[in-house]
């Protein structure tokens, strides 16, 4: 989305009421152009996105215009009207990313030049996004309140570590497709008890589901509405049919269907679904294909063999057409849910939903022609399935690439672990000598090679005993906690604590994480700004320290051990930070003797 460009037909308007100048809107990364169709018109535009502060748009609806309004820094705005909402949405998305990119570029520039102490100029959208993030995430909000409003961190510092959240959220979230709810729609007719009226509620969601599960209804909708009846009449009729089904009175259903052709469509079995099924079955895995069995079964010629238990179905032929089973509906429903939302249409407009679904089915049909390699794939699959895996050496498994959604989050937590275990050694860590001469490097390499030559490469990288020890060390506390708490998987240590204590503990954990993150990232201290920041952070951390002790003491005695186990790593991490801080201050004061001017 961020690269390339978007070109759409649009009308440029000076105000919403204005008819506007028809033309072409073209957007590139940095700027957008408007070329009127009439070359003599003066409504030509060429504006940089840098200047665009924000955008507004109209809600989608059948009788509304598809408008996009770009507001500019200086206070002006550009309004465009599009032919369709999809065009508008494409532009809207593009504009959103373009604004974000240019805004960020601007900010980055300013950050570099100006003193980072000052809050940078935020674009409106940026601010909005931050506010939204805070609103969505209560924990983040709490943290923000404590640290930023409490003056420990500046706004910019707080967000600097969350850049990922900021720029990804907006553009990525909308791309994720939402699946369908696995919820059978069943008209539960609600009657008011007094009159004989029955009410049905249909939402756009339900309508979409009906269309997806019942192609015949979808087709009927496209055929009947609006030429033969209104949408309301259509759904009334449909609900009538559903009601008849729910009474399970086949005879009545048949009688009503005989009188009303349109109603009959809903009452009869879905031929389209059946033919679709017949088409699909050709692509089924042959090791599942029970239809093929039937084709091979000469014992069960009509009336040969014994009728097995219960499978005898009574067919009163005239009514069979109107019989419908829950089982069938369940299968159909689950298949649709599994397929997921295949269409990318807003659910508001019933007709467009129906059309889009019909189209997607059409696409499936055309796909079918080229299923040569699907066949091959299927054969491979069967032969793979035929193997007995534990009688042979493991084959190379297909590896799914590891996808870490937020690398920062992931590696931060890893770092915390590392700090925890290295806690004490870090304080007294001696300065590593980092510059090596070529000769030294060569020497060490030679040593390694000769070592390998003598001992060979047979040794595994890590000795199994060592590996086991490490693993035990790492997992011991987990397993022992599990063990002590019994086998209930739902219950973790935290759940057994009083609610308040749990919340507080979690909150402290979060803020310690945050503070430590900032603390360690400030080293080595090169500017005064960093120095003050570090001391601020240190103060904040030392405030938390006693609070943790308090929690430890306040909880009941039977939880105390668990809590102290939980608090221990936090304290260790804080201790490590303090030790480092003190060591650094000492070093500095020693140095400051030489350089009385303080920091450079």
């Amino acid at each position, binding site marked *: 989305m961020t690269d390339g460009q978007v070109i759409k037909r649009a009308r440029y308007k000076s105000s919403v009421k204005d008819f506007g100048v028809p033309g072409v809107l073209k957007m590139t990364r940095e700027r957008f152009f408007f070329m009127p169709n009439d070359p003599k018109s003066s409504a030509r535009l060429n504006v940089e996105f840098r200047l665009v502060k924000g955008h507004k748009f109209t809600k989608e609806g059948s009788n509304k215009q598809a408008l996009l309004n770009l507001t500019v820094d200086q206070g002006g705005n550009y309004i465009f009207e599009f032919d369709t909402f999809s065009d508008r949405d494409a532009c809207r998305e593009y504009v959103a990313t373009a604004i974000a990119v240019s805004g960020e570029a601007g900010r980055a520039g300013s950050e570099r030049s100006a003193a980072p102490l000052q809050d940078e100029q935020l674009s409106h959208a940026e601010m909005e996004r931050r506010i939204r993030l805070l609103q969505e995430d209560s924990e983040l909000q709490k943290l923000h309140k404590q640290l930023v409003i409490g003056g420990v961190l500046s706004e910019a510092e707080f967000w600097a570590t969350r850049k990922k959240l900021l720029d990804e959220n907006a553009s990525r979230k909308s791309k994720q497709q939402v699946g369908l709810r696995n919820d059978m729609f069943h008209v539960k007719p609600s009657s008011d008890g007094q009159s004989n009226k029955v009410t049905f509620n249909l939402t756009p969601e339900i309508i979409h589901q009906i269309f997806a599960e019942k192609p015949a209804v979808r087709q009927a909708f496209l055929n009947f509405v609006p030429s033969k009846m209104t949408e309301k009449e259509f759904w009334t009729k449909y609900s009538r049919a559903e009601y008849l089904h729910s009474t399970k009175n086949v005879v009545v259903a048949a009688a009503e269907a005989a009188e009303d052709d349109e109603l009959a469509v809903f009452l009869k079995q879905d031929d389209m679904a059946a033919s679709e099924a017949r088409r699909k079955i050709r692509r089924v895995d042959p090791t599942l294909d029970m239809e093929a069995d039937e*084709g091979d079964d000469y014992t069960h010629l009509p009336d040969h063999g*014994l009728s097995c238990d219960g499978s005898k179905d009574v067919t009163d032929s005239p009514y069979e057409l109107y019989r419908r089973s829950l089982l069938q509906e369940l299968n159909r429903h689950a298949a649709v849910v599994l397929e997921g939302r295949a269409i990318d249409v807003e659910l508001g407009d019933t007709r467009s939903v129906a059309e889009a679904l019909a189209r997607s089915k059409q696409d499936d049909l055309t796909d079918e022609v080229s299923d040569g390699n699907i066949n091959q794939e299927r054969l491979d699959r069967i032969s793979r399935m035929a193997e007995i895996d534990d009688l042979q050496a493991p084959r190379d498994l297909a590896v799914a690439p590891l996808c870490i959604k937020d690398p920062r989050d992931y590696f931060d937590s890893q770092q915390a672990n590392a700090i925890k275990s290295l806690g004490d050694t870090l304080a007294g860590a001696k300065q590593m000598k980092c510059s090596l001469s070529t000769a030294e490097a060569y020497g060490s390499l030679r040593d390694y090679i000769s070592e390998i030559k003598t001992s060979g490469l047979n040794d595994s990288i890590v000795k199994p005993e060592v590996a086991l020890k490490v693993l035990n060390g790492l997992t011991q506390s987990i397993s022992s906690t599990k063990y002590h708490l019994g086998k209930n998987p739902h219950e973790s240590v935290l759940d057994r604590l009083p609610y308040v204590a749990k919340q507080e503990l979690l909150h402290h954990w979060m803020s310690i994480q945050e503070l430590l993150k900032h603390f360690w990232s400030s080293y080595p201290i090169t500017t005064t700004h960093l120095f003050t920041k570090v001391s601020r952070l240190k103060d904040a951390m030392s405030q938390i320290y006693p609070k943790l002790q308090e929690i430890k003491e306040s909880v009941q005695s039977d939880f105390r051990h668990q809590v102290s186990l939980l608090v221990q790593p936090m304290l260790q991490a804080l201790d490590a930070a303090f030790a480092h801080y003190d060591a650094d201050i000492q070093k500095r004061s020693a140095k400051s003797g030489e350089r009385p001017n303080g920091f450079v």
Partner: protein
Amino acid sequence: MKFQIEDVTVYFPYDHIYPEQYAYMVELKRALDAKGHCLLEMPTGTGKTIALLSLITSYTLSKPSNPIKLLYCTRTVHEMEKTLAELKLLHKYQIQHLGPAARILALGLSSRKNLCINPSVVSAENRDSVDAACRKLTASWVRALAIENPNIPSCEFFENYEKAASDAVLPPGVYTLQDLRVFGKEKGWCPYFLARHMVQFANVVVYSYQYLLDPKVAGIISKEMQRESVVVFDEAHNIDNVCIEALSVSVRKQTLEGATRNLSKMSQEIERFKATDAGRLRAEYNRLVDGLAQRGNLPLADTWLANPALPDDILKEAVPGNIRRAEHFLSVLRRLVQYLKGRLQTENVEKEGPVTFVASINAQVGIDQKMLKFCYDRLHSLMLTLEITDTDEFLHIQTICDFATLVGTYTRGFSIIIEPFDERMPHIPDPVLQLSCHDASLAIKPVFERFQSVVITSGTLSPIDLYPRLLNFNPVVSRSFTMSLTRDCICPMVLTRGSDQLPVSTKFDLRSDPGVERNYGRLLLEMVSVVPDGIVCFFVSYSYMDGIVNSWHESGILKDIMQHKLVFIETQDVVETTLALDNYRKACDCGRGAVFFSVARGKVAEGIDFDRHYGRLVIMFGVPFQYTLSRILLARLEYLRETFQIKEGDFLTFDALRQAAQCVGRVIRSKADYGMMIFADKRFVHVFSFNTSLYS
């Protein structure tokens, strides 16, 4: 790997072998050496099929002087595909180690419906119409006409195949049905007739049970198999049922109405021929006088389903004089249909033996036993004479003649039961006349006699001494192997009470108890919320499943279940069930997770694997006893008690147990697999004490 079993070098396509597989091969080899039949039981998940295939192919390889042919019978087409896939693997391995010497020809055989590649034929909706559509293009008289008149359509694939004549052969290799179709398309030959031709030369043939057991099919397909063959019935725990079904016929009102229509159509045809081509009818009459009911070798494409009676029981003599003339034969059939119509109008359940039934036919409509016996042959001859190609239209009269032939041929082991309505729905009249076979040994006898070795194997054959009695044969080897477990990969449990401490059961008095239904629902709900991937549930019957799913739906339990997993259900419509299964697998593959509701004794329980993540848990709701009020079952039980001294209760428990074991065994495929099994019925405690060898 490669190893020796006595004098045979076995090529086994894996690096390791389970100890029970080795033991299985040793026993199997002894049976082959002794040229006798054997009975081998080994639990599912131990690689029976591959052990069997690799021993028998290796046996042939090490004794090239007298090669044996392998006829491998599976219950279903999809099992056929699985077997062929394993055979492919094995073949690849053997070629790798032995070179071209290890080449074999192996193929699967199925009906036209599954093999035809002519788009105009295969698009017909069911098997019978595909067969008929094929005959319309390939029957000898149609082809003769087509030569003269190019406007009469013919099948290019069949013509090409005929033209290629003896050149039309399959090169060595392993062919699944799909491979056969692809090969046929490539060469432009009809895969169905090619496969039927190649069956005689193939080293391994994989086909369905019926191709050997059902005389109607076996008479065409398996007539010319050599004696030096090993016949394997895999998953054979239900083989007795297949045998009795092969010899059973039922007649309903619709059948009789259809038969009447067929008869009038045929008499019209006869009139037409009389007017235009009287010579043909006369020729047929003369042939029948000469005693040739079946005219020797029919052209390949003219054959139709063979005589429903077993080959040894078919009389090789001239058709009786009074049905030689076409009109006479039709009037005999009309009288027979009329008689059966009269019998169906009864208001009570009637049960009698074939002898009294035949006597009463003779007394009332004057058709004697011999005439009945020849009904099939006579009809067949008449249909060929009348050049009828739309055989699917004439299935009803076919059924009547099959019935007549069987009832005229057999005097014991059968009974005729007439029920005016279904026991469970007494208010709906649905009269049915059933000729049911009780003796499983009848249908399988010719197989035991004709072939050198017959191997009956399955995951559950216990009690293993029951099968030789049911099927009336003497196995040289009869062994039951247990599974060696290196770890607890299965966790069977019996659940007798629900969470409210009420007993759960599908016993008749508890069956519709809302408490039981609720408890079952809650059990499933708790399970779907903790078990990953796929769960399979088996119910005792369709009607029970339908009822309980509806009640779960109304009480909202189903909705809660659907919050955790997708729900797919086996229905009576195979197409829908197949798609449901396919979707179920997709849901398990993508991590969505799903539940599959299925029926014990149903098509799914019979052969679909729910291995690996496709089935981490299987729940058996209720003990799958047969419907004990069924007249047919009662008659069979009586016969078993009188003839084989098998107690009713024992047989019923044995039968329920093998079904249950079959259902839960679907979740384990290898020892690397794992799964949990819940038997939810208080009666399982007693059932398991009857036989503990299920999974020890």
